[in-house]
């Protein structure tokens, strides 16, 4: 088992668009790493560079002591030689091959005998519930089955590193939940390193052991999921992770709302540029009961809880409540704060607690 080490990786396209900008990090062996970020943040490029499908312009990329790429020595290991597993968003199953042919393709490339191939397919078919589907063609399968074929194809050659590029985005909600569980179980049984690219924070939060939030070609924060949520290093991370997103309030001097939030954090107020409040940290109380008042604007019950649109001092904020709201739309309620849900960011977007 080896770490994936990225040193000063740079990738630009046509010298214009900088996709990955001086990226240095280490993905520890055995981790389930999620690269999370909005589209265009460089996460897929990073994954494709690890797979070898893109060559970085400069920097170094190591897998343990194996050099994948180095602009210092001029080494570049072709993807064919890296022995990785890669799963595409579209699965990229070959429509002209049967399920079995798809799955054992990698073994065929490694000159396996036909018995070896048949046995391995039997094993994998059992593992991924594909029994009896070997002779079918991909278009004859359901989305979930296609996904499992893609997984089986990737795992058939016992890759030392699994790379997954938004593999769940084409599935419906129920199937997605099931697959999340399956991938998590798989990671546990195989114990190998997984790098998983997604823009869906829920996927990242639920599956990853480590999340790397990317923005504009750099990693903003890499940490355990709960730390990402509760101790976001930057305003970008704080805003990107969490649903409904964190409420952002400008910290202008002499503002009641800002002063109220400032009390909750106990940080030097003059350094603060923006306050962030997790929706679940906003608690409603009877009118006059809290230090702050708000008018209920909308109520969206999700079943499990309620998303409540508030107007606080004329500013829109969202609160998330496990209890039904005590008032109806248009009525005024009091507000209290759960202090650990309030964050303060400086002018460069850094979380002041984390900086401190």
């Amino acid at each position, binding site marked *: 088992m080896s770490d994936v080490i990225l040193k*000063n990786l740079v990738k630009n396209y046509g010298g214009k668009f900088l996709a990955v900008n001086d990226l240095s990090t280490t993905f520890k062996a055995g981790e389930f790493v999620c690269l999370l970020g909005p589209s265009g943040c460089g996460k897929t490029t990073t994954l494709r560079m690890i797979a070898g499908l893109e060559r970085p312009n400069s920097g170094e990329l190591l897998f343990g002591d194996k050099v994948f790429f180095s602009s210092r*020595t001029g*080494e*570049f290991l072709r*993807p064919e030689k890296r022995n990785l597993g890669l799963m595409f968003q*579209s699965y990229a199953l*070959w429509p002209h091959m049967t399920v079995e042919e798809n799955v054992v393709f990698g073994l065929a*490339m490694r000159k396996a005998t036909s018995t070896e191939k048949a046995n391995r397919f039997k094993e994998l078919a059992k593992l991924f519930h594909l029994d009896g589907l070997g002779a079918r063609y991909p278009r004859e399968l359901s989305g979930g089955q296609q996904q499992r074929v893609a997984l089986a194809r990737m795992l058939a050659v016992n890759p030392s590193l699994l790379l997954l590029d938004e593999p769940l985005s084409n599935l419906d909600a129920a199937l997605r939940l099931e697959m999340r569980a399956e991938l998590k179980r798989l990671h546990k049984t195989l114990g190998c390193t997984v790098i998983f690219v997604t823009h869906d924070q829920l996927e990242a939060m639920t599956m990853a052991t480590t999340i790397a939030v990317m923005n504009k070609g750099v990693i903003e924060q890499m940490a355990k999921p709960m730390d990402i949520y509760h101790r976001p290093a930057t305003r970008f991370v704080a805003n990107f992770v969490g649903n409904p997103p964190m409420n952002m309030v400008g910290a202008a001097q002499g503002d009641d709302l800002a002063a109220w939030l400032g009390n909750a954090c106990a940080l030097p107020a003059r350094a603060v540029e923006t306050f962030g409040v997790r929706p679940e940290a906003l608690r409603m109380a009877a009118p006059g009961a809290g230090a702050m008042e708000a008018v209920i604007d909308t109520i969206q019950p999700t079943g499990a809880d309620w998303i409540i649109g508030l107007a606080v001092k004329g500013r829109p904020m969202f609160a998330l409540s496990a209890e039904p709201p005590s008032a109806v739309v248009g009525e005024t309620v009091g507000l209290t704060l759960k202090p650990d849900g309030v964050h303060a960011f400086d002018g460069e977007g850094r979380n002041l607690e984390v900086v401190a």
Partner: protein
Amino acid sequence: MAISTSAAKPPLGVRLRLLVADLRAEPSIAIGAVLAVVLGYLVLAPVAAIVFSALRFTRMDAVRASAKPGDMTFSYLERVFHSHVSVDIFWTPLWNTLTVAVFSTALAVVFGLTLAALVTSTNIRGRGLLGFLLIIPYMLPSQALASAWITVFKNRRTGGAPGMLEVIGLTPPDWLSYGPLPIVMCLALSYFPFAFLLFSNALNKIDTQLEEAATTLGAPQRVVWMKVLLPLLIPTTMSVLLLTIARTLGTFATPYVLGAPVGYTLLSTSLYSSIRSGASGVAAVLAIVLAIFGILMLLADIWMVRNWQRFVTVGGKGGKRDVAELGALRLPFTAIAWTVFLVAAFAPLLVMLLSTVMREPGVFAFSNFGLAYWTGADGQPGVFTSPEILTALRNSLAIAGSAAVLCGVLGLTVGYAVVRLSGGWLAGFLRQVSFLPYLMPGLAFAAAFLSLFAVPRGPIPALYGSLSLLILVMVVTYLPYASRSGISAMMQVGREPEEAGMVLGAGFFRRILAIIGPLQKTALVTAIILPFISGMKELSLVIMLVTPGTEMLTTQSLRFLDYGHTQLANATILIIGLVVMLLVLLLQRITKTNLAGGLGG
């Protein structure tokens, strides 16, 4: 934000190692580079040759002007645009060309739109069958209708076998036999299937929800057509207009056969006579004018695509349009549709066929019928025994066939390189250069090839008089179609299937053999059959390049017309039609689609 490594450039050895690694990892770089060099030469060299010969003295003119051959001159430009003969070599042909283009295009659009509406959206009788039959004129070479017209309307003005009307005692006036009227009619009838195809396609694609929305708001059928469907067809109409005009500008056979006897010259025939008489400077200027027209059409098309995007209606959910019940009008409309088929396809074919089985044209006596022209009689060889026709058939199949295979493979290779290298300048260059021949008139391109490859050039031996020159020029001319379809086929498949193989350890050749190849099987067959069809029908491109041993069916049929053997000309055209029809049926079998797909060439 500075890129940290850009400060110190790595040493040369390291950069070389990386370059080698890149080339090994991405063979499409090498493929693209080779393609760029080869295509660049094959496409840009003729274009440059045309431009040069427009501006430099030929040997013939240099002697008279006491200059050196190759000296720079504007005399050809002057001769074409501003001399006492420019009216004859340029302005009148230009006016004639525009007249013919406007009228034949207008007619083709009217026929095409009416018939497409009738066949796709009404209950006229035999619509399924008509959908195929109306495309037949498209499968015939462009001189077919002209030849059929001559067979019927030829008068005593020209020699050889007399026309059918002449024989039964009616002498058609010149304006009916030759000149603008027959040219316009023949072009309109041979180009309307193209309009018909595009309009049918568009009508089938329009989201029926758009009509349903109008119907639910209380609009009667007539209003739905006037206010919803016809306006939605405006972009299609525009592209049909442009494509048909572009084709008319370059058309050669019809004006040659029907215009020459009365001296009605178009730019294309003026270009032909300039080349034939050795006035290559003037020919080059005319070729450039035609190419500029091509560029204007292309720009207009680009402009339109940009400006009419709001009319894009693809991706709708609506089902198949209900056919309109025509009621009392059903019979008359059925009659109209079938009449067009009869006039445009059936009658010409019948006339041509009849002419080949009648000893004396126009004499409908039983004893006058016979297979003499097919089997040969009185010591004269017939179609089946004529060495000329058999050679031409063999040549046509060999030339069009090999050009088609090369074109198909080349097109997909260009597609592969462009898709793999997308975003890079190499991909952009390949795209542009492979599209350039689209703008050059076939005659001019052929002339440039003639002068370029008559002698050995570098590794290429002298090709004139060999089949390879014809194959080469055909490959280059059809390249725009082939590479366009190759690019779109590769785009559709995308990079991922290949990358999946890469990651699983498949090297380049394995990926091509096991993944890309099988995935592009149908695309490849289509990319071969379509140029094959065009090649079988091609005339203007090859007319300058064929030599006695390399005549093709199309040029042979024109020779027969030149020598007054109308019957043999017609038989030759029928053979072409038959081969093309077989190819079309084969194509439909393989792609499981109808023609409406993408007949471009």
